[in-house]
């Protein structure tokens, strides 16, 4: 009967589909609600913000302003659909966990949601953040590696009853975090231990922590945390402890910001029962996200005492120095290795010798110091080894002086100087002279001078020269780099133009004939009347010469007429020109006219004839 079963299933889903979608979905009004689970919250507590959007399924995620005062953890959203009296209504509920960052009165919101291009807002919610809950934590046992530090035994003694009658944490808190330093008044360079602990009496999963920015401290994290069980206020707490070594860099009041821990805490949830009897109540566990914060930690960093001996280079802690030499008898040119081993607790990574190691009669080569560093609950400890290769250059007894390292002991509050042992080396002459790499005879009989030590060159005195670049320097450079291509391009253009002109002289002569001739006529000196006919005749013939690429001066009036007629200027133009030229010839070889202003008339007539001819040429 599988067919029957399948058809029943299909029928069931179809009827369910029809059931929901057969109801009229009315366009509901969008309603936005927001509320918090409490109005007052302690600094180490958290509150739950719920945003409910009714009447719209397709909305943007809520935007919550003024969230800078809280750490926010989104819990996602839960959609729901209800059918009441045949009307389907949809809603969405967003949940956020908010952990306060400071005390005071704060506003959450306004909260904005967008749906179908419209924006919906709810008014801001006011929340008061009070001081942290005071915990009375059990005293930590003495005698730990760091003063005030718990020892490595994970099981701590039970919390004694609180004489003040204050509510113990167990009564009020199932999960909380604390932070402390083992020494709140360290010296600059003295290492301290910052520890934060997470106390839980419930299961916690997916824990992540965000460390504060250890400003003005050198921070060294101890990778391995530890966990143990501690009894407090009659309840048992699982304690997870993490430690960071801090080395203050500068003196003064320093505040270490809270460490934030985020994780999911397993909580029991009651399922409502049909009976009021607890026997019938069903319980199941759910993971609820939590944000925990430790308190701020104040550290007053003290300045190191002023009477530091010379050679002190900032080393703080408790140290010892061992020294050794590889051999005490060797030949010149051979190498003995001096080793200094500084070990102890403190900021020894930066340890340096108080003075530069120099030795007359020997060459010193300094190795790069090696550091063996350990980080644990005792702080930074380890060894720093300094190595020196000593190459004697002169036979005899070579005394290696004691070398010193100066440090500040914060327990004794005094500066201490560690010295290596003085050592004497017996240096014999080398049997193989060629092995004396450092003292070599030259051809001149002298020897190469070896440097005893290295140092920086001295300062420069004398006049101080200002070397600031002018603000116009780069602008000038842009101009300098733009000009040469422009000048080059212009030069090339001019050259091309000239070449073209030289290759196309006749064309230009023809083109410029009229303007040239008119210009010449206008420039004519009218005071020399006898010259006027001759000059006019020459200009007109010159014009025709330019137009027809001929020698104009050699043309007779009759040749001019023929030329103009052949050049499709028309008979009238040819005849006019011939007559005018003949008139000019009669004035040249005969008598000049007697009437007033003949010269002006002749000039304007010549211009008109030229324009007429040029116009007809253009028409043609």
């Amino acid at each position, binding site marked *: 009967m599988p067919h029957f079963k399948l058809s029943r299933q299909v029928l069931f889903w179809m009827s369910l589909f029809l059931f929901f979608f057969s109801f009229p979905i009315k366009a509901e009004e969008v309603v936005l609600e927001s509320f918090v689970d409490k109005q007052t919250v302690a600094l180490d507590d958290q509150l739950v913000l719920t945003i409910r959007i009714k009447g719209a399924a397709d909305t943007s995620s809520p935007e919550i302003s003024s969230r800078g005062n809280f750490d926010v953890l989104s819990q996602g959203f839960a959609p729901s659909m209800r059918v009441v009296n045949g009307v389907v209504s949809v809603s969405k509920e967003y949940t956020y966990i908010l952990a306060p960052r400071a005390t005071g009165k704060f506003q959450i919101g306004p909260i904005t949601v967008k749906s179908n291009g419209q924006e919906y807002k709810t008014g801001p919610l006011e929340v008061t953040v009070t001081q942290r809950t005071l915990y009375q934590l059990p005293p930590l046992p003495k005698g730990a590696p760091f003063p005030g530090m718990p020892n490595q035994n994970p099981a701590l003694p039970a919390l004694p009853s609180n004489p003040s009658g204050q509510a113990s944490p167990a009564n009020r808190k199932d999960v909380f975090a604390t932070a402390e330093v083992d020494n709140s008044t360290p010296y600059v360079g003295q290492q301290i231990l910052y520890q934060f602990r997470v106390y839980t009496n419930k299961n916690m999963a997916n824990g992540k*922590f*965000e*460390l*504060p*920015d*250890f*400003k003005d401290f*050198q*921070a060294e*994290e101890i990778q391995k945390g530890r966990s143990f069980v501690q009894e407090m206020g009659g309840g048992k707490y699982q304690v997870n402890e993490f430690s960071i070594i801090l080395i203050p*860099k500068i003196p003064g009041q320093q505040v270490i910001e809270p460490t934030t821990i985020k994780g999911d805490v397993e909580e029991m949830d009651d399922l409502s029962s049909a009976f009021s009897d607890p026997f019938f109540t069903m319980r199941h566990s759910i993971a609820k996200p939590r944000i925990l914060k430790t308190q701020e930690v104040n550290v007053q960093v003290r300045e190191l005492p002023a009477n530091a001996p010379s050679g002190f*280079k*900032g080393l703080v802690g408790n140290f010892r120095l061992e020294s050794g030499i590889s051999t005490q008898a060797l030949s010149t040119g051979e190498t003995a290795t001096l080793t200094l081993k500084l070990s102890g607790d403190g900021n020894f*990574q*930066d340890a340096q010798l108080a003075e530069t190691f120099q030795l007359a009669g020997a060459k010193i080569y300094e190795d*790069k110091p090696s550091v063996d560093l350990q980080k644990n609950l005792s702080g930074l400890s380890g060894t720093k080894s300094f190595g020196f290769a000593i190459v004697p250059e002169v036979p005899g007894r070579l005394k290696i002086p004691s070398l010193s390292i100066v440090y500040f002991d914060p327990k004794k509050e005094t500066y201490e100087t560690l010295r290596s042992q003085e050592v004497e080396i017996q240096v014999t002459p080398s049997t193989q002279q060629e092995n004396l790499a450092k003292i070599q005879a030259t051809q001149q009989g002298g020897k190469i001078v070896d440097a005893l030590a*290295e*140092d*920086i*060159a*001295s*300062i*420069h*005195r*004398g*006049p*101080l*020269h*200002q*070397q*600031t*670049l002018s603000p116009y*320097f780069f602008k000038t*450079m842009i101009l*300098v*780099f733009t000009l*040469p*291509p422009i*000048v*080059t391009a212009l*030069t*090339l253009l001019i*050259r091309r133009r000239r070449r073209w002109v030289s290759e196309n002289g006749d064309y230009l002569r023809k083109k410029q004939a009229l303007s040239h001739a008119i210009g010449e006529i206008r420039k004519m000196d009218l005071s020399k009347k006898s010259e006027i006919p001759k000059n006019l005749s020459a200009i007109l013939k010159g014009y025709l010469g330019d137009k027809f690429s001929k020698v104009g001066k050699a043309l007779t009036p009759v040749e001019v007429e023929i030329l103009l007629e052949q050049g499709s200027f028309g008979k009238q133009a040819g005849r006019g020109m011939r007559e005018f030229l003949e008139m000019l010839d009669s004035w040249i070889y005969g008598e000049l006219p007697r009437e007033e202003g003949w010269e002006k008339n002749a000039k304007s007539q010549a211009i008109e004839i030229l324009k007429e001819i040029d116009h007809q040429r253009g028409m043609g």
Partner: protein
Amino acid sequence: MKKLQKAALLLYFSIFICRFSFGAALDVQFQFDQANEAYTAQDYSRAISLYQGLVEKGINSGDLYYNLGNACFRSGRMGQAVISYLTALRLTPRNPDLIANARYVMGKRIDRIEPSLFSRVRDSLLWGGRVLNLQEIWILAATLYGIFFFTLVLHLRKTTRFRKTLSGVLLFLNLYFLPVALAKTWQERGQITGVLVSPVTTIYSEPTSSSVKLFELHEGVVVVVKETRGEFQKIELEDGKKGWTQARNIQEVGR
């Protein structure tokens, strides 16, 4: 007598004007000399404060930064010394004392960063940019550029073998010095070069101190700042390693 009075008055005004013109320069020189005296007397902190006072006044001099670098080194401020030497090298790149001191001080750093192949090739190609300062290299590039175009015009007017060879050589020089000048300008004005000034600096994989610690560096390491995000800066070392650290650990080399 009147002539004498006039001359005296003229002299007085000349001195008055000169005092205005050169007064400031004399003050600067006086402070520089004082700083040098403090250095000689091994009062390095006073010398540093006087040299830095001059820097804050806007004095930009290779000698000033060189002396400041010396004073910082003497007082154990390795990072500051490296910054001062790098700034001085940008102004007086051929100063032999400066080159020797910078090499010596950088050799004293705890960390040794091996430059990547790319860095080595780039530095070899930009050799010209190391021996000339920014002003010098631009003036040289501009001069070569101008001469090249002049030769080009001559070459186009009348081609001779000499002019052709000269144009070719100048073109090659231009193709070298112009990109070098641009690269140097980018290095000094465009990108941010910094030096680590904290004794120990932790480099993280992300711009947060809770991320993975990639490695630790010590004072004096030269880095290129690639990006700033909040209090963190992304740095790149010469060997190509990258990471994030707090901006307070880095001090910028003067631009």
